[in-house]
């Protein structure tokens, strides 16, 4: 059974703005997939649909999204069981979406909210083993020492790793990361991507990550799905991504991308090397 199955998904904002056009996508368990594309191409919108946070168009155009075979939404309606399906999906957001006034540990513990009784959740009664679990998750992403601090005191990179720890505690088999490194510096970006790659490699959790930075996508993710104007225009191995595909995605007048193109143009060998490097990083992580 596929980890994520998206069938004929369409989304129109404000009646005219077609954000997603007939998306079909199958992601197998244990894959690490990058979603790339220019700003406004629909990466975030697709991720939020998979997480069941926004409904697609009403009726047949809405298609359906299945996660581990369970519908999280179909024909533009969020499934009544969406809450249960969401327990199996960890979402990591660009702006971390932590509750800043709560401690880092409590933020990570909120990952358990879908699983504990309403009574315990209401009074914040987390048992010792759950707190241990949260601490271990924080340790895994390298920030166990921040557990007692308020989330607002953490740096961007640390907050994002706390958000990943929350997804880990949740025990989600699928992790959706929506531009997790878009607001981070390069060193923090690398740590966050390493953490995601490590989780993918060691726990065989499915990871879908949308990225602005094509180099990170090619380095960390064996498979790339590229979106342009809401449609999938490339879906295949990152090793096979050519400069032409990138030019098609981002437009060739974009100056910043010239460096990228050179990098990609330096030959398919470089790309395969990068993939191998990605594996190395995973193994080392």
């Amino acid at each position, binding site marked *: 059974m596929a980890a994520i199955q998206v069938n004929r998904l369409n989304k129109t904002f404000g009646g005219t703005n077609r954000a997603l056009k007939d998306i079909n996508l199958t992601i197998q368990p244990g894959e690490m997939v990058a979603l790339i594309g220019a700003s406004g191409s629909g990466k975030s919108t697709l991720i939020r649909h998979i*997480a069941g*946070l926004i409904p697609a168009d009403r009726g047949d155009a809405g298609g359906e999204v299945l996660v581990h075979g369970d519908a999280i939404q179909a024909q533009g309606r969020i499934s009544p069981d969406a*809450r*249960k*399906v*969401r*327990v199996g*999906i*960890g*979402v990591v*957001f660009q*702006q*971390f*979406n*932590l*509750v*800043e*006034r*709560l401690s880092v540990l*409590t933020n990570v513990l*909120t*990952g*358990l*909210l*879908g*699983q504990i009784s*309403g009574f315990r*959740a*209401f009074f*914040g009664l987390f048992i010792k083993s759950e707190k241990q679990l949260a601490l271990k998750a924080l340790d895994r992403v390298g920030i166990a020492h921040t557990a007692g601090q308020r989330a607002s005191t953490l740096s961007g990179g640390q907050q994002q790793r706390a*958000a990943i720890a*929350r997804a880990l505690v*949740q025990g989600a088999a699928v992790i959706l990361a929506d531009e997790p490194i878009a607001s981070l510096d390069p060193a923090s970006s690398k740590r966050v991507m390493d953490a995601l790659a490590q989780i993918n490699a060691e726990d065989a959790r499915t990871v879908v990550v949308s990225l602005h930075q094509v180099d990170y996508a090619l380095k960390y993710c064996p498979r790339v799905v590229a979106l342009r104007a809401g449609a999938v225009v490339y879906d295949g191995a990152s090793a096979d991504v050519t400069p032409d595909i990138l030019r098609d995605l981002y437009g060739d007048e974009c100056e910043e991308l010239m460096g990228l193109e050179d990098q990609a143009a330096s030959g398919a060998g470089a790309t395969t090397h990068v993939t191998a490097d990605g594996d190395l990083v995973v193994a080392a992580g």
Partner: protein
Amino acid sequence: MATITSGREKVLELPKPELKRSVMNVLGWGLFALILMWSWDGADMRPMELIRDSGNMVKFVEGFFPPNFVEWEIYAQEMLITIQLAVWGTVLAVICSIPCGILSSENIAPWWIVQPMRRLMDAARAINEIVFAMLFVVAVGLGPFAGVLALWVHTTGILAKLFSEAVEAIDPSPVEGIRATGATRLEEVIYGVIPQVLPLWISYSLYRFESNVRSATVLGIVGAGGIGMILWEVIRGFQYAETAAIVIIIVVSVSILDIISQRLRKLVI
């Protein structure tokens, strides 16, 4: 850079006043003057009497001095009761305002709950606590309990509105983060909303406590307990020296509470 070479300074033209704006100005002030004149008779304004009868006024004021503190223990006791009934009225209102405030927030509850809840809170707010106190005195009898109920209902109307305004101004992204874990709506509110609004809520509640102590000092006038009861008695008995003593006790206690509450509010924000 402009340099003056000809010796003749360039005359800059001031912007012409806009005709429309000056007309609006004149109309606005004219309207204001009309409203003042229209209200004059209804308000029975007789400023000349203040001057003509100034001798009487001086005599009247003299009656307050020196304040008579002979029965200060009774006054202090009643002031304490006033504060105690304000404490209970405020605490009960805070407890009720949490659900009522959340259910009047457009970003949390559906419109068919928000609208009726808001109208209910509007009504609780629109009716003065003195009016509620008169009604509750009939219902539960004379005494501070009627005052507690009056403050409770009126303050719930006010705090629910303030609480919901705080909730409507939150950052939605942490709530979405909680939702994505598979949490229920209630858990989203507890973990995503309340931590964000708590400092404001505490501040509003303390502020309402200050106001409620002030309001509670007059509730006794309609028999709803507290220092207002004896204040009303001494005023009606023309015992102005005693009135002065009671007023001083009220001013001192309310000021002390205001200062404490202000300090606390600064702490939480």
